[in-house]
């Protein structure tokens, strides 16, 4: 019963957040977007503006994202081995 109430509350929270985001309607164009689209190919040589952003304009973000993946994989390996040894006896 308590779990059901919590689940319903969380669902309502999701719906409220989604509704508020829908009302606000994020901007689909802006000065930054037009700058990226118009200058991506001449700046970076990439026809795909997404590649221009994640490999050139925001390359630190990509490096740290790869680091994040590496660390999470190390954590998965570590915890899966630890759990095994604890359950053994």
């Amino acid at each position, binding site marked *: 019963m308590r779990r059901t109430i919590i689940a319903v509350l969380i669902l309502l929270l999701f719906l409220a957040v989604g509704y508020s985001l829908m009302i606000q309607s994020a901007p689909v164009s802006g000065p930054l977007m037009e700058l990226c689209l118009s200058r991506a190919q001449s700046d970076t040589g990439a026809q*795909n503006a997404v*590649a221009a952003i*994640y*490999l050139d304009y925001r390359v*630190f973000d990509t490096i740290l994202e790869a680091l994040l993946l590496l660390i999470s994989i190390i954590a998965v*390996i570590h915890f*899966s081995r630890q759990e095994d040894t604890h359950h053994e006896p």
Partner: protein
Amino acid sequence: MNRDISPILSLGVGLIHPFILLFGVYLIAGGAHTPGGGFQGGAVLATVFMSRYIALPHHPPDEQVLQWVEKLFFLLLLTFASLFGVYHLIPAALPRTTYLFIANLIIGVKVCCGLSLVFQRFIGYESGE
């Protein structure tokens, strides 16, 4: 662990392997020009290891090798991207599209190794390795 593998299953997996590989390499190689990129292509390449488990569950890939390759490729990405992407060194030696291709390739191999490692660890954990 004496599960018999259906020949239909292993044959089917063997048949779709080249297409998965081709699709993953296409996503990585075309990352600079078409939708796709290193992360997506690497995730597709990782499904090769996952479907390999269906066909050959008793011959898992070596986890140590996968770990070493992943760490090595992270270091490669770090040096390559910081030399070329951040500081824009050696601009004449390497055209920009080559930089994008090599960076996508490094990210793809790294993500492929990482996701296959996670999959292998989950398999090992579930079977009480």
